[in-house]
């Protein structure tokens, strides 16, 4: 009986060794393909930006969160010159990513040169878990070149309240 088991194990070991060699080259092929797909996606991403959102008209709006103890973000509504361009609801996972230092690209679009009004309305839970809704606004002078705005939600320890600001990059 023991001899049979040993023979079976030997056969199995040889089988698995052969599989490992194949798996090695397959693993290499999969990794190469992944790398190629990533490179393709990168080039496509850059091309999209250049073609659809050229730098002379581009407006990108980002959102960041600093700590987030006084405000639990639910959603952001972004309005440009009176038109709602995006209304974004955040998942718990996305909020966690924001709290840990991630930055969300909220909006990417085109804008003519000149003066514009940007309004962001934040909704969520404020201190003591109360429903909270606040807006922040800025007059923007769009010149040539891409314009990047950062919507910042910051905890103000002094006032024990969240603060909302727009930073122009």
């Amino acid at each position, binding site marked *: 009986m023991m001899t049979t088991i040993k023979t079976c194990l030997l056969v199995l070991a040889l*089988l698995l060794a052969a599989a490992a060699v194949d798996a090695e080259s397959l693993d290499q092929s999969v990794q190469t393909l992944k790398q190629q797909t990533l490179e393709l996606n990168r080039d496509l991403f850059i091309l999209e930006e250049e073609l659809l959102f050229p730098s002379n008209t581009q407006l990108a709006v980002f959102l960041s969160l600093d700590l987030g103890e006084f405000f639990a973000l639910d959603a952001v509504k972004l309005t440009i010159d009176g038109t709602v361009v995006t209304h974004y609801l955040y998942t718990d996972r996305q909020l*966690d*990513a924001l709290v840990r230092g991630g*930055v969300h690209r909220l909006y990417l679009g085109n804008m003519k040169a000149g003066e514009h009004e940007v309004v962001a309305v934040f909704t969520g839970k404020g201190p003591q878990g109360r429903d909270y809704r606040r807006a922040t606004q800025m007059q923007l002078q769009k010149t040539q070149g891409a314009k990047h705005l950062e919507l910042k939600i910051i905890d103000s320890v002094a006032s024990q309240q969240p603060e909302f600001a727009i930073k122009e990059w």
Partner: protein
Amino acid sequence: MKRLAATARPVIPRLMLGLISFAVVPSLHGAETVQSLRYGVTLFHFFQQDYFQALTELTAAQQLDQLDDVHADKAELLRGGMSLSYGMDRIAEAIFVEYLATDLDSSRADAVDSDRAWLYVAKLAWQRGDEEKTRRALSRIDSRYQGALADESNYLRASVSLRDGNYELAADFGEHIHQQSIWRSYHNYNMGARRAAEGDWEVANAFFDRVEREGQGNTEDLLLRDKALTASGYASIAAGNFNAAAEKFSKVRLDTPLAERALLGSGWSHSERGDYQAALSAWQLLADSVSHSQSAVEAQLAIPYAYEQLGIEDVALERYRQAADAFDGQLSSVNETMALFDSGDLVEVLGARQDWGQEWLAPVDIFPLVPQMPQLRHLLTRHDFQIALRELSDLDRMGGHLSQARVRIETLVQADIDQQRIWATIVDGNQRDLLSQRYEALQVRVDRLRDELSSARERGDERWFADFDQAARWWLLDSARARLQGQLDSEGKIDLYAGLMIWDDSEQYPLRVWEMSKALDEQVQLLEITQQSMKRLDKVIANHQQREFSSRISDIDKRISSQQQQLQTVRLASEQNIRKVALAHLETRSQYLSQALGQSRLAIARLYDRGSSEVAR
């Protein structure tokens, strides 16, 4: 004790976790002021474990040179870490090695320590079984390194020494691991497993006891504790210390993956002491579970054995029959599953799951309810099957990315056509020239007006500055003077009116000059703005003429087609690999079940024979 030897291997999933919890991100406990938006967006995807988007964002930022100096330094290391998490360990290793080959400015406060990068290289080499490379990479880590991964580096050094059989050195490295670190527990477990594999039960148990004692009580610690207790139990059985073994097994939690092995061992420890009732309790618990694991199979054979030992042979016979039926049923199921893996549609065999996320190996049922479910569950406990399945799901996800890329490129083709049409009307349709002509005509009129104004001021021509109403009155007066020429009374009145109007013009002159100059200046400013707009337009036209999108679109389009073809080929190979791995495991399982079936039938025959001998012939 064959199982113990197997557990002495380095804990690869733990290593992977260590690598995934990559630490070149700003802070895991609170955001810092954003310094680079692109880098921040990368982290946003990274923290959600969306490595594909994170790598796309990061590499695009690198390509476009949009990272500041600080993040540019860190980016390569982050790319290496994310590549690893995305299942590209070879590429990750190449990135780390290249990163380490560059001159690192260690004097910079924000510089990433090279020791950490060397550790990643060492871990990757260790995972791949390249011990020589592991040693070389570890030797590059400063022996005084006290960074965040110091414990991990000592753990790896100890593991390498353990593999070499140098227990003393391994123990020495182990002593450098902090008491509270999980790596210390892993080290102790590995030391124990290695000693157990060599039959040195006492020493092995001493190490396993340390794991039990020194754990910090978190989930990972508890799991390792269960593993150490199980291993210690079997080591105690081997040493003939059955009471200690029973005690160890009894401490293993019942809701963990180790519970089945522990229950089996617990039964054996009681059985060896002659306490078959206690043994039956443990084995019955295991046999009643829905599991088709090897432990459950062993328990089904062990139960009738215990009844035999208790002298209850009729129950033993019945339980052997039940076991034989169960093994027969399982064997049929295994054979059917083997036939499916051999020639069936793999999508149907595995269930058409297209939504495997990045964390699909989480301990949840990932397969749909299919008849072959028990065998699939068994396969999913095998590391190589997990890897093969992961590869297939990665390939399917890549197929999804490529299909999306195809849709996106089609959108770009249409956008490019639309833009070309618009440009044709602007550039080729002379719209720009027409605008230019209108601008020049306006410029001429403004220049003329400026000259006239200047000339009127030099002449002191107050009437020239008259506003619209005053000019109308002058026109009426001049017309009346022309019609009433020769009528003395009327001429006198007209002169009087003219005098009043001259007086008025004289009074209003400074104000009107100021207003006129102001209006002219405003006009000039408007023209300057228009001129700037014209320049911008010229620049945009020039830039547009420089940019050639169609060739880039065509290039990407070709790459998508080529990669889709490659994907098909690799996917086919991946499917074959899954079939091969699954069949190998199922074959082993089939042999094991056949053996168990044979044993149970042999036992039935033996019991029948024994019963027959009691009958008078």
